[in-house]
Structure formats: structure tokens, C-alpha cells
């Protein structure tokens, strides 16, 4: 435990009632309403840092960095779609709505993704022309709210993602508070300006997996079976959800772990619902393998992915690709220290800012304020995102080559060990230095 040097000795902070807990009790007592915020779960969870790669040595043959090829491309949607999506790198940009994010931020995401030959995704609020124009490959989300949903945009999409849930709030709907409902957003969503908008948590015209199968067929009919259809679920009962998603006819399944970011959700929801990304992947892969569908129905994993090691670990556990939200926003400039003074003025600090719902983001990303939005240059921010995506790819390749793999998708659980008993049990890989996979074999 690190020594707290700021508090005088003898003053002992309670581990149960720590300062954040007490602050929240006072906030609740002051306002009478739950805390709503953006960002993902902030509590410490078993995560990819708890895993390590076993590089090649005597028993495995490594590949030469820089010289020997290590493929990063991946094709998504090979099951039913006439036009599967070909990505140059296995890192995609997750769905984030125009509304939550400024038009400039959405454009920057499209630009960055397109430079690197990967896809970006719309969000709860429909497709904007800026985003479509700047995204070579755009995935169109089909959400319970159906804001802005229309068949013309549906046919412009390169893939359709039916959203059942998000890792930050499995079982919850969206929120967009009045501050962010400008004229344009109100019009796109057919809502009165300035309302605190709650989007539905359930789809309005189907209830269970059998209905969903028919819904997916409808979407395929409307788009003449051209584009892949994804199903996105928040990680909870992942094993069963993935089986049902395959049965319902998904081409691609997106599993979003509880660390996944959000634009606005109750804090209690973000921190207490869902399972960590690490725990969800083996469940999803097991379900696919049991159905003989691993690699046939592709698996995209998201929730807390930050670097190339996280990407490589997801893929070693069996994912075909990953999606990033928060990290992409940070690459654009979210929470940047250069705005620290301004963050302080709104009661936050660079690196801590999570009040995306308020629309006052000094970095011009999670806002609809025209003055703040102008601070984000979509071309420059897009370039930054492309650089970052490039680093993720190079790092993942470095690790794959060290394990002797000439394709990121050849990484396997056998290449991994865990540092803690928890992560070994969740990821279903042995505790480092042992052959012990808790719950499986001794």
C-alpha cells in the first residue's frame, strides 16, 4: 500500500467510508437525485494488465520484428452478408452518438478511422452527413430509441449494429440531458428542444430472441442482404447471450464489458452492473466454439481497451477485433492537461473529467456548444486518432511476433498466463508459473 504523505499520521481514513463515499452521501443529501455521469467504471477490476504473454524461446520460434509479416487485417460479416467489411486493422471505433459528441468530434473519428482503414460507428441519434462523408466504413446502430432511424441511411451503411445493451449499463437506456439538445439534435431525434431525454432500454417492436431473428431478417430484406448485421450486448450472461445472438442470425457479435464508456448514465449503474471485459471474452468464445461458429461469426470485444497489449490479449483470448470508445476520445484530446484551468472552473480536473452529460467539455468533444466545439479541429484530431490506432497496431504486432505469430488472429490463450488468481479464473488461463487454471484443472 502506498504511503499517504499528505494526511497527518493519526488521522485514519476509513476504507469503508472513504472520502469519495462520504462525498457521494453529501451530494445525495443535497440534491435528492442520483448522480449521472459519463466515462466508464472507475473502480479497480481484474483487467488485461493482469495477463502476460509467454514470448517464444526454446519451444517456440519468434518472428523478426519489422521484417517478417504479421497480418492485421480482418473480414467481418462473412456469414450472410453479400458485402462483408474488410478492415486493415482489428481496432474499430465504437458507437458514440452525435448528441453526446460534437459534430467535429464525430467527423474526427471518421477521419482517423478512415486513414487507418477501419470502421467507425454511429450512435443513439442517427447518422450525420459529416460522419458518413468522412467515414469510409460506417456501421449504423439500430437502437431501442430509433432516433433518426430511416431506410435511406440504413442503405447507406456498411454494416448494421443492433444494440441490445452497453457494458456501462446493461439493461439501461440512454440519456441526453437538455443542455445538449440543440435545435439540430432535437430535429434529428424528433424531440422538443431542451428536454432531458431518456431513450428506451427495450426495443419497441420485438421482445425476445425469437422475435429478434425475424427483426434481423427484416433488416436484411430492407437492405437486400448486402451488409453484415452485428448484435451488440453488454457483458452479463455472455455465454447465453452469444448463443442466442448466433441463433438470431448475427453475422458479428459485439461484447462490451462493464468498463466500457458511456455518455451519460447513473453512477450506480456504471459501477454495479455487468461483468469485466476479461471475464466476458472466454464465455463468448466458448459459446461460439460449442456452436462451431468461432471465426465464422466474428467477435468484437470492447470495454477498457487502451493499448496494443490489450488488443493482443483480447485477440489471444479469441476475439476477431476490438472496439474503442474512451481511448479514441482521449486520443482526440478529451481530458487533455492543456485545459486543466478550465476543467477546474467547472469543478473537475484534467484526467478526472466525466461530466459528459453537462455539455461543457473544454476540449470541445462531449459538447454541443458551438464555441467549445470549434476548439476541436477535425482534421488534426483525426490525424491524432490515426497515429494512436497505428501505435495500437504496431504494439499488438510486436507481441504477436514475439509469440511467433504471423497473424494477430493466430494468438491463442496458450500464449497467456495470469498474474492473479481472479484473472486466471476469469480469463481461463494458468496462473503464471503454474499449470493451474482455477475452476478447471490442477
Amino acid at each position, binding site marked *: 500500500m502506498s504511503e499517504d504523505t499528505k494526511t497527518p499520521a493519526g488521522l485514519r481514513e476509513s476504507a469503508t467510508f472513504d472520502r469519495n463515499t462520504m462525498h457521494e452521501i453529501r451530494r445525495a443529501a443535497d440534491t435528492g*437525485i442520483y448522480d449521472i455521469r459519463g466515462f466508464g467504471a472507475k473502480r479497480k477490476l481484474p483487467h488485461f494488465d493482469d495477463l502476460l504473454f509467454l514470448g517464444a524461446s526454446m519451444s517456440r520460434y519468434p518472428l523478426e520484428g519489422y521484417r517478417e509479416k504479421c497480418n492485421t487485417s480482418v473480414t467481418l460479416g462473412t456469414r450472410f452478408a453479400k458485402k462483408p467489411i474488410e478492415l486493415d486493422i482489428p481496432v474499430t471505433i465504437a458507437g458514440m452518438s452525435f448528441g453526446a459528441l460534437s459534430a467535429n468530434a464525430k467527423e474526427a473519428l471518421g477521419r482517423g478511422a478512415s486513414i487507418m482503414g477501419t470502421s467507425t460507428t454511429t450512435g443513439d441519434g442517427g447518422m450525420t452527413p459529416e460522419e458518413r462523408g468522412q467515414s469510409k466504413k460506417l456501421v449504423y446502430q439500430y437502437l431501442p430509441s430509433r432516433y433518426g432511424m*430511416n431506410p435511406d441511411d440504413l442503405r447507406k451503411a456498411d454494416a448494421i449494429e443492433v444494440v441490445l445493451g452497453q457494458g456501462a449499463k446493461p439493461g439501461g437506456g440512454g440519456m441526453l440531458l437538455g443542455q445538449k439538445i440543440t435545435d439540430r439534435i432535437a430535429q434529428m431525434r424528433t424531440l422538443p428542444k*431542451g428536454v432531458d431525454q431518456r431513450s428506451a432500454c427495450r426495443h419497441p417492436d*420485438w421482445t425476445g430472441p425469437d422475435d429478434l431473428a425475424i*427483426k434481423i*431478417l*427484416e433488416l436484411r430484406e430492407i*437492405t437486400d442482404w448486402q451488409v453484415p448485421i452485428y448484435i451488440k450486448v453488454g457483458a452479463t450472461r455472455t455465454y447465453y447471450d452469444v448463443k442466442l445472438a448466433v441463433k438470431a442470425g448475427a453475422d458479428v457479435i459485439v461484447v462490451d464489458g462493464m468498463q466500457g464508456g458511456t455518455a451519460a448514465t447513473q453512477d450506480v449503474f456504471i459501477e454495479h452492473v455487468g461483468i469485466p471485459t476479461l471475464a466476458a471474452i472466454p464465455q463468448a468464445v466458448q459459446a461460439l466454439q460449442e456452436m462451431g461458429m468461432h471465426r465464422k461469426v466474428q467477435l468484437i470485444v470492447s470495454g477498457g481497451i487502451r493499448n496494443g497489449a490489450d488488443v493482443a490479449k483480447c485477440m489471444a483470448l479469441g476475439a476477431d477485433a476490438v472496439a474503442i470508445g474512451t481511448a479514441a476520445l482521449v486520443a482526440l484530446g478529451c481530458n487533455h492537461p492543456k485545459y486543466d484551468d478550465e476543467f477546474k472552473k467547472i469543478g473537475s480536473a484534467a484526467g478526472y473529467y466525466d461530466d459528459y452529460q453537462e455539455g461543457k467539455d473544454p476540449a470541445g468533444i462531449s459538447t454541443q456548444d458551438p464555441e467549445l466545439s470549434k476548439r476541436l479541429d477535425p482534421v488534426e484530431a483525426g490525424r491524432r486518432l490515426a497515429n494512436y490506432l497505428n501505435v495500437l497496431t504496431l504494439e499488438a504486432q510486436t507481441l504477436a511476433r514475439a509469440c511467433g505469430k504471423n497473424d494477430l488472429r493466430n494468438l491463442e490463450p496458450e500464449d497467456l498466463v495470469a498474474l492473479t488468481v481472479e484473472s486466471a479464473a476469469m480469463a481461463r488461463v494458468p496462473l503464471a508459473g503454474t499449470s493451474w487454471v482455477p475452476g478447471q484443472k490442477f
Partner: protein
Amino acid sequence: MKTVNLSEVSIRELNQALHDQKAQCTEETWTVLEPKGQHNIACGLDQTLSVDIHGHAGYYCAGMNQKANVTIHGNAGQGVAENMMSGVVRVKGDASQSAGATAHGGLLVVEGNAGARCGISMKGVDIVVKGDVGHMSCFMGQAGNLVVCGDAGDALGDSLYEVKIYVKGSVKSLGADCIEKEMRSEHLAELTDLLKRAGIDEDPTQFKRYGSARGLYNFKVDNASAY
């Protein structure tokens, strides 16, 4: 006129033929026979076609319709005319739940009864039901008009935004934030027009109007029980 028998032709073939009319319209009038409750009949149309379906249709018939005039001479399954943008969809029989869900425009007429959640999340469509509607109808309705000539089930218009609801018969219960509102002359005129467009002979003065109290538009501590 082109006749397609669904016991001989697949849904895919029918829909593709109808979609092909968008680029070049070679046939405006279509008759569909023996639908036998199959799903996704005539969804995603985008041309001024006239499609008559003789028999019962399954889920999502005429889903996301644009411009076309689709008549189902029978009952319709879940989500008929869901997310319609424009055109007219008419169900001669009864419609199952979520009729006209999230539809943005056009006119949906149900000459029989409609099940639960009729007009859920509607975004601008006009829906006229000659019979009754089930529970949770117009839940989170955003824009457009819902006319019910019979009775409405429980929780009508729960969490309503700006839809205008007109009901002639009884309302079992109103949902959160839905209230009865004054029927002014402009509403009578609008209702008269809706009934006329739907081809339904009812006296508009016999209807009551319901709408949003707009009390849930912004988060307030006092509304905690409604969240």
C-alpha cells in the same frame, strides 16, 4: 397488374422485385396471394406502388415503408408499418402489438383492433384505429397523431412527448404524465381531416383529446416516483 403467389415465390424474391421498382418503375399495381402469415412481406418499399396482400401477414409487414400504398386484406402481425416514413398502410383486419412503432410519417389505418403498444415511440406518423388499442399504446410517443375510435387499454400515452391522442371510447388508465386536454377548434379540424383521410365515418365531436403534461421533460426530484 402483377400477381405474386407466395406459395410459389419466396419473400426474398417478392421484396427484391418490389425494391427493383425504385430504380425503374415498370409495374405500379401488385397483388400478393397466399401470404399465410409469413414475415417481412413488402418491407423497405420506396416507390409509389399499390400493393394488395390478400390474407394474413406476419411480423413487420410494410416495415419502413416509403411512398407505397399497402393494404392487408386480413390481419397483420407484430410491428406492421414499423418505422414507416411515408405512404399509406391499411390493415383490413386486426393488427398485433407495436403497430406503427417508431414510424416517422405516412398514414396507418387499422380497421379492426390493434394490440398492445400501438404507436410506441411514434415519431410523426398518423395512426387511425377503428376499433380498440391495447395497453401501453403510444408509450414514449414523440410526434404525430393517434386516433382510437374504440377503447384504449391501460397506461395510454405513458411518458408521452408531443403526440396528440384522440379517443372516442373509454381509456382504462392514463400512463405517467399523460393527461386529458381541451379539444379546441384546431384539434377538431385536424381530427376531422384524419378520419376523412382514413375513410372512417365517425363524429369528431365525440372524441376526447389526450397529450403530455410535459411534467417529465426535465429531471426533478419531485418526479422521483415516475422514473
